[in-house]
């Protein structure tokens, strides 16, 4: 009898598989990133390029753009696996579905969320945000995009059986993401005014802890129903 694969090993294998798949389709990998940069550039063009006005809208623009662009790739989180039958095989692998869903969510964040965090100082700079506030924005986005990936995994699992589900998925996930937007934009706002921004950042951390511990269970239950 060959030794069975442990949970941690299974999770790393699945993350490795999803990253490999993502890099085989490198063009899709760039879409959310380019979308983020384009949206943040559209605002100065449509409003006015005055630095004072840009600084006023910067927190909101950065966070709305980040939320929308990380929603773009969410549809593919479980859909592609469900379509080619690999999701069934994952469920039948004997590994806990919670672990598999968490692994897939983390892989999704690594290719869809983390690049946004890394590139966010560039977008912030183009909106006239000071360097200190850039760092706070990146910290906030780090927690915010991860929280959104976990929230989105529930939405993606619930819409496995729905065709063309991206609009429905956005409608499910965006209302739940409102607290993220409020605290995230507030943190950037406070940092730009030179005040302590740790309050909203702690709240973002609390939201992350909340979704990271509960969302995988909800998503796993929805996956089991979805493959039925």
């Amino acid at each position, binding site marked *: 009898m*060959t030794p069975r694969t442990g949970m941690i*090993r299974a999770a790393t294998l699945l993350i490795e598989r999803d990253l490999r798949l993502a890099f085989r389709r490198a063009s899709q990998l760039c879409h959310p990133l380019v979308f983020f940069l384009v949206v943040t550039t559209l605002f100065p063009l449509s409003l006015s390029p005055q630095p004072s006005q840009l600084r006023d809208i910067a927190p909101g623009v950065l966070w709305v753009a980040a939320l929308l662009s990380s929603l773009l790739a969410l549809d593919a989180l479980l859909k592609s696996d469900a379509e080619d039958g690999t999701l*069934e095989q994952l469920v039948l692998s004997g590994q806990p579905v919670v672990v598999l869903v968490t692994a897939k969510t983390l892989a999704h964040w690594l290719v869809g969320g983390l690049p946004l965090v890394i590139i966010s100082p560039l977008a912030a700079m183009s909106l006239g945000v000071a360097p200190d506030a850039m760092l706070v924005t990146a910290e906030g986005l780090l927690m915010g995009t991860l929280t959104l990936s976990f929230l989105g995994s529930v939405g993606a699992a619930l819409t496995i059986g729905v065709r063309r589900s991206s609009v429905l998925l956005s409608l499910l996930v965006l209302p739940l993401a409102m607290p993220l937007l409020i605290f995230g934009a507030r943190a950037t706002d406070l940092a730009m005014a030179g005040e302590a921004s740790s309050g909203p950042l702690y709240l973002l951390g609390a939201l992350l802890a909340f979704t990271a511990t509960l969302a995988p269970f909800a998503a796993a239950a929805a996956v089991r129903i979805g493959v039925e």
Partner: protein
Amino acid sequence: MLTAKNLHQWRGERHVLRGIGFALEAGQLLHVAGPNGTGKTTLLRVACGLSQPEEGELDWRGQPIARLGAEFFWDLAYVAHDAGLKGDLTARENLRYAAGLRATASDADISSALATLKVASCADLPTRALSAGQRRRVALSRLLIGSAPLWILDEPLTNLDAAGAALVLELIARHLVSGGMALVAAHGELALSIGRISRLELT
């Protein structure tokens, strides 16, 4: 052994499985036959534990499969009608991840499984570039990695040429001789050289 008693399943308004029962013992093949749309795939998915029957009992080695959970899945290899392969990954990578999630699978195991199904030459091509028959062979080679005693196969001979069909039947026969079990849905005949075949006709 796998036993089912009085299985009922509805698909919306349609009563697809109406009191199905069977017993599958070591060394036996159960051929689920019947015209299209009579619930062959539904029965197989229920037997896998992918969907729950609305009524009836399904036991693996005397215990309900719903209670066994992962322990049942470890004893099971299911090849569905969809090949269950990622088109962007090569055949070798597909097998490595699919089998690796269950148990440690060495590269040698994977290569020999692919060679047995005569698809060793396309092991390093992305599976989207393969023909339907080659994809089916890659999907079936998953059965040979690991040692699941229960094979559940949904139309395993579709898209295969005559030599491929004979090869798959030969592999099933070998599996039965070594004490395995197989639950196979097929609308045609399964001409098996050895092993005990019983037939479950769905209407």
